């Protein structure tokens, strides 16, 4: 499942990150999207994109295109 598809409030575990066309995957890993890490979908920006994620006690905003690169496994679903 892609990180971008998760509903607000849900928690997931990162399984892997695609490299991306311009090597963006590496940066996502450096910033904390490492396999096995928990990520929580915090909230969407008022205009619907980007989305704020909480990972390793940091809030990071990603656009949909960036979150599409992250493969996750859902552990707890919650509706916004």
């Amino acid at each position, binding site marked *: 499942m892609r990180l971008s598809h998760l509903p607000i409030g849900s928690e997931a575990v990162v399984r892997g990150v695609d490299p991306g066309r311009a090597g963006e995957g590496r*940066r996502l890993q450096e*910033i*904390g999207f490492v396999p096995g890490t928990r990520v929580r979908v915090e*909230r969407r920006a008022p205009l619907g*994109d980007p989305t704020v994620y909480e990972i390793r*006690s*940091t809030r990071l*905003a990603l*656009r949909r295109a*960036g979150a599409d690169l992250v493969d996750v496994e859902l552990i707890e679903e919650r509706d916004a």
Partner: protein
Amino acid sequence: MKAPTLAPADELQVALVGSPNAGKTSIFNALTGMRTKTANYPGVTVSRREATVNIEGRHLTLVDLPGTYGLEPVSPDEEVVAHALHGEIEGVARPDALVMVADATSLDRSLFLIAEFLELDLPTCLVLTMIDEVSTRHGTVDIDRLSAALGIPVVGVVGHRGIGLDTVRSMIANPSGWERPILAPPAGLRERSAWVDSIVSTVVSPLDADTKTRRIDAVLLHPVLGVLVFATAMLGFFQSIFTLATPIVDRLEAALGSLADATRTAIGGTLGEFVADGVIAGVGSVLVFLPQIVLLFLIIGLLERVGYMARAALLADRVMGRFGLEGRSFVAMLSSFACAVPGIMSTRTIPNEKHRLATMMAAPLMTCSARLPVFTLLISAFVSDRAVLGPIRSQGLTLFGLYLLGSVSGLAYAAVLSRTMLAGPSAPFIMELPPYRRPTARAVLLHVWEGAWSFVRKAGTIILVTSVGLWALLNVPSSTPPPGFDDAQAASYQMENSVAGGIGKAMEPAFAPLGFEWRTNVAILGSLAAREVFVSTLSITTAAEGEEALTDRIQTLERPDGTKVFNAATVGALLVFFVYALQCFSTVAVLRRESNSWKWPTLAMGSMFALAYLAAYVTHTLIEAVS
């Protein structure tokens, strides 16, 4: 490339490193005070802040490196950090030791960065900031265990209360005595992740969630409330920049005016005129911007340090994305309403090179405060002040229209660039939302001081040189007016027959389609260096005495054939010309420096002049046709 120019044996160089928002700069400020120097790294766009401090009889240089998320650089800032730490910058010595600054409330993420820094095999120590927040959130960090696990010294500090800073200070004096790790952290991503988890589980007891930040975000990022707060904040921003600064500016202008008059009479003769109209008027035209610039840096510095700027960027990202920009571009463009120079410099935080270039190129089209005196003069002289709707009046509405025209054009300009010269795949948008924090007065004031001072230095030199040069060109050669001329006529005669007057007349064929005559042309020529020079030059070329007289003068000034020099069409064309033209040496210089090439400033200058001419021509023709 590698040229490790070693510092004197006694001169230790210690670098502060860490991720953005870790509190690195406030630690640096606390350790060094006001004794910092800001200089650029050779050949690159990133500035380095350094200071020499004397600790326990030992001189050492502290260098504050830009915040970084990793040593595989993706932004210009990060590239400098990587090069500096590998000793690959010519003429700059590799640091002898590293002080890593990390936020204790997000230690697990910081450990990834710490692992990368430990690979450099330099003497390293770790300063943990925000340990007070760890305890308010009912967590603990075992500093001794962390130190044992990493094999390096670790100190916990509370930066804004000065706790722990003495320990840091005496520690950095003696890096050779620091404990060095026996084993380097594991290399592979998964192994490293396990290493981080094992350290975190033994050192940190889990913190309560940051409910304060979550609660504030629930309001500030709320679909309705958030947008409302954002709109109010922006309105307040403009309101304070223009209304709070105005009375100070007026008083400053009056004081400078009387100073110039006093000097003219006291010194007398040509020298007196030179000092009054060249030097004092020149320096004064920079100084009057200072209140606005100071307010701008104050408000932006506060919003930035509280943590709101990242939220504003998040809110604006979707809209900015349509124009090939991103959320942080919005912050840069906001600064550009006061002055494009700090606006362009603030694009350094944009990691995506294409977004960054598009933002820098659009910044000069935002209506900066240097255009304001020009707009104010022309609007107050030629737009009758009547009520349009409620408190909205025609003069204010005209000014608002010009701001809107500039902003919309800037966004369109960025959109065109990102679909042509800057097209193609680009790095992703990642932005950290720092927790909300109360900024220290010291940090904000230091930010204001550094911003304002660099503005005065840069703009001051250029404007002073231009004003003095123009004054000279307008007074050479000295001509004797025909008998019977009064003072004003004699002054006009002098201007018209000077070198500058000749140039203004030579420009007439090119600018006649816009309705400009030689006096305006000379003023435009002067405004090439800096827009505000337009007003002071126009008052010289029209031989007006003082600002109020200038308004009357330009309303009544006639050409030899009896028609008005300034009519509705000419004024309209002039206003539009100033919306688009890139008349500012400082902006060109900073574009050149920040893009590291002449290509972008040349393109900006050329295209914005073409736009200005074209738009002014269209405006002139339309108004002529209507009236």
